[in-house]
């Protein structure tokens, strides 16, 4: 009984430690004075107003949303195809390939960033939307693959055989049987990809240029160069977007469990 209480207390402490640094930013974003004082001395919405009227901030937000949506699409399509290949085919070195696809989760971001930087200089992709989408897809892909693979594992391979016996081609089988059954995993994967791109900073710092910055890059520049609390408002908005999308992903996976 006491053991249980100790554990509960410990959990509360951990949650507190995890969440406090994140939540501190919320009151700061409503600060009345132009500082990062905590706790704030008065309340106002001026920093949100700043954010939503500043063309530079809005441009960065637009870039981020565009890149995140494109990344979600590209990573989802590529991830679903890769997962199908990995789950349906049996060949030597399959587990090697599986690990290869998941490598971006383990390889330090900075390593990928430097590699991409030198590659993008040659390909002239620095500070371009395709460049951002390509870079973000690399780190988003493993999340899609993990989610889709988990979904595929719950699909009986004999359903595809049944569809074939009923006259459905491979493509038709995929769109009418397999895909509907893995929609929750695909949705979750796409949402994870969106959030990953929307939050991505390490690669983005390397491949950005003044003409094209995403929101996290602009936040970083702003924090290191000025003490404008607008950045706090931006951070809160970013956080809210991530939280909402992650909750949606949670819901999608919950639906997957309910279905099977």
């Amino acid at each position, binding site marked *: 009984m006491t053991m249980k209480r100790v554990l509960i207390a410990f959990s509360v402490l951990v949650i507190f430690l995890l969440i406090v640094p994140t939540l501190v930013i919320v009151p700061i974003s409503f600060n009345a004075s132009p500082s990062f004082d905590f706790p704030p001395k008065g309340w106002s919405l001026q920093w949100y107003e700043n954010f939503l009227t500043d063309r530079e901030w809005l441009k960065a937000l637009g870039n981020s949303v565009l890149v995140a949506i494109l990344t979600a699409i590209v990573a989802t399509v590529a991830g679903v195809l890769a997962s199908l290949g990995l789950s349906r085919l049996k060949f030597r070195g399959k587990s090697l390939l599986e690990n290869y696809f998941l490598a971006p989760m383990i390889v330090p971001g900075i390593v990928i960033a430097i590699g991409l930087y030198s590659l993008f200089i040659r390909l002239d992709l620095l500070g371009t939307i395709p460049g951002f989408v390509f870079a973000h897809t690399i780190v988003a892909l493993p999340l899609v693959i993990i989610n889709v693979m988990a979904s595929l594992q719950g699909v*009986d391979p*004999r*359903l595809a*055989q*049944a*569809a*074939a*016996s*009923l*006259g*459905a*081609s*491979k493509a*038709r089988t995929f769109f*009418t*049987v397999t895909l*509907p*059954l893995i929609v929750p995993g695909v949705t979750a994967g796409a949402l994870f990809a969106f959030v990953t791109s929307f939050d991505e900073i390490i690669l983005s710092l390397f491949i950005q240029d003044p003409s094209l910055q995403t929101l996290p890059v602009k936040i970083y520049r702003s924090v290191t160069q000025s003490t404008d609390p607008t950045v706090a408002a931006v951070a809160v908005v970013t956080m809210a977007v991530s939280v909402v999308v992650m909750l949606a992903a949670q819901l999608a996976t919950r639906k997957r469990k309910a*279905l*099977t």
Partner: protein
Amino acid sequence: MTETGAQSVGAAEPGDRVSGDVSLDTRTIQQINEAGISLKGVTKRYGDKAVVDDIDLVIEPGEFMTLLGPSGSGKTTTLNMIAGFADVTEGLLHIHGKPVAKLPAHKRDIGMVFQNYALFPHMTVEENVAYPLQRRKMPKAEQRKRIAESLQMVRLAEYGGRYPAELSGGQQQRAALARALVYNPRVLLMDEPLGALDKKLREWLQMEIKRIHQEVGSTFVYVTHDQEEALSLSDRIAVFNNGKIEQVGTGVELYEHPDTLFVGRFLGESSVLRAPSSTATVRDGNTTLAVGDHHVTVPGERRGVESLAVLVRPENLSLELPGYVPASSTENALPVTVKTATYLGVGWRYDVVLFDGTSGIVRTPNDATRFGPGDQAIVTWDVRHGVLLEDLGEGDESTT
């Protein structure tokens, strides 16, 4: 037709040797073209292991053929090759005279029923049954009519709106049957479709499947390891053992005239006496073997065989009191000890042992002399009822 039948497997002509001992003469080609399904020298290898080993099988159009055999004998692999889920390593596979070895599964016009039903869980029963029709671009009204008819046929008319998860196992399998039959495929393949159901339901569905086979007239290929199921359903049975077909025949043929000891023992119950062929003497077309101090006579003879076996069915054996003397030379008699006596309602079943430890099963009608455990008795049978087989010394003691 004759031409295409042979050509697309590498321009085989009459007389060509295609693989192993399959040679295509005109008669073979005619046989292929007239068959519902024809397998000639079909082999499936995984690595070096031939899990289906050079089998020949001709299934007539409209026939109910059962592939029967123990687990791992290659039945599913054979069915999967017919369905197109597994490649044929070697040999010729034709469906209605058409070579299909290279044809993808979805172009073979077959229906398939799986043990685990394989209904699409995100579709209702009706949507499942409609699935094969949608691709076939059939008018909507015609589709509806067909769906209603096939649900009627499997007695699921009221369940069209349900999802598979809302049905019992038996209902799911009937829905799967409706889905596989709604487009009138000329061939229906079933892989242990009743394996997951309890005995009562299984027996009822066996009757349903038999009725449906008679109604639709398609060629049915049914896989099972249950010999009773095979006997009650099939026109003919192909007995599989170790990747090979041991014998093909009607239930009666296999039960009464097995070609091999394996077939004899796999179908129904039996008692088997074994003796080296050196003790055999042949007279008037009968073979007499020495079993200890006694002699047993069987019709027929087998030459060039090291060891012989005599197989007798339990219902052909009788038990007599000790001291019984056979009335004529057409009756065999051996002294035994009764081990157990079991009342079956329709009669009695006795497990008996011979002096040399060989065990046997005897079934007697209710009005026959009764015996109890430990009793001495004489087991007798008419010479005609013994089957003389080669004893390959397999360690399959399934009847004991």
